[in-house]
């Protein structure tokens, strides 16, 4: 029998603080550090898509080319989606549906406005970004916040969404898996 409880306010408040203090898009194009490679390896491992190398996009046009590849695999996207749906179902079993939905919507809306501004700043600093790509970056980052919130509310501390968020928090943008490589920007 399921037991529905009130949403964990402190857990959501802690996540909000992490979102506010993350270095969104601050390290795009910089050489990868050991810590970032370690987070990338943890993400690959948790996603369960086998052994992958880590690659890097150089600039915004390179990012746009990678993300628009018509023949690019989206197995990683489908894996993330399947996991998100499972975690959301777990969270829905724990918390009142409307309160859960409202808190996720409010959090994602707040995060979306923040990361959009950060993406715009990064694009202006580096140059050569298509205007729509700022929206793409903001969509990716706010999706990462949403995924992490769902995982934490479901009580799942070992999901790939933890290491994925750490990459964003370090100023990176994980672009997904192309061939046998996870590409970071």
């Amino acid at each position, binding site marked *: 029998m399921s037991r529905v409880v009130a949403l964990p306010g402190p857990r959501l408040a802690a996540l909000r603080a992490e979102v506010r203090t993350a270095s969104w898009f601050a390290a795009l194009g910089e050489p990868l550090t050991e810590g970032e490679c370690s987070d990338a390896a943890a993400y690959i491992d948790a996603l369960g898509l086998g052994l992958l190398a880590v690659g890097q996009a150089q600039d915004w046009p390179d990012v746009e080319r990678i*993300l628009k590849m018509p023949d690019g695999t989206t197995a990683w996207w489908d894996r993330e989606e399947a996991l998100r749906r499972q975690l959301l179902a777990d969270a829905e079993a724990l918390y009142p549906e409307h309160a859960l939905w409202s808190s996720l919507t409010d959090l994602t*809306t707040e995060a979306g406005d923040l990361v959009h501004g950060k993406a715009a700043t990064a694009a202006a600093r580096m140059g050569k970004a298509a205007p729509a790509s700022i929206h793409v970056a903001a*969509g990716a980052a706010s999706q990462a916040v949403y995924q992490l919130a769902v995982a934490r509310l479901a009580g799942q501390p070992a999901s790939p969404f933890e290491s994925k968020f750490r990459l964003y928090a370090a100023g990176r943008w994980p672009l997904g898996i192309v061939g046998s490589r996870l590409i970071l920007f």
Partner: protein
Amino acid sequence: MTDVVIKTVEELKDAPEEYREAVGKLVISHAINELYGAQVFDEPAIAYAPTPYAKWLTCRVAMEEYGHHVRFKQLGLQMGIPEERMVPGAGKKPLSIFEFPLKTWEEFVAIKLLADLAEILQVEDLLHCTFHPLRNLARATMPEERFHAQFGEDFSAELVKTPEGKARLQAAVNEYYPYLPSFFGGSKSRNNEIFRKWKIKQRTNDEMRQDYVKRATEVAAKYGLTLPEVRQAA
């Protein structure tokens, strides 16, 4: 015409009852329809988007639409409207277009191209609203609505590059466009009369509808698309 200007939510408490009710109806309507749009079209469209670029762009659009709901709901809460009246299922009938769940990427592109243009006209009409918190909210929302319509244009431009893509997009336009002119309400709407009396809104439903049909025809033509004929109920 009645010259009332309400600069804050606090001042609204002293406004005439008809004015307060009219503003409340508009806020509720926007809060509900933004939420329906995000749930029925924008969020499901992420799965249909063909590349990660399009998927994340659609994510951002969906989040902005949810954000519009949040903004209107927050204004409604400040005005004393109970939250349950600003979410679906509270008795207010949704617009008919929301009864047709999304099935393809081309349908989503057609909706962004044409339905978000209708949304732009609705928001434009609030840009000079005498209730300034609603006017300000409309001004904050407008750039995002324009981006959503541009999203529709950009992906329409992609789709019409091939005959197959253009045919699928035209089929989606044919399916969804007939529901859009009725977005603007009845010709003899009592609500619209009250909105204009208090300068909450500026134009009649018919004026807006005519403007919409003209602009929708122009934007469709840019991409070699045609709009099906729609017969209007009196």
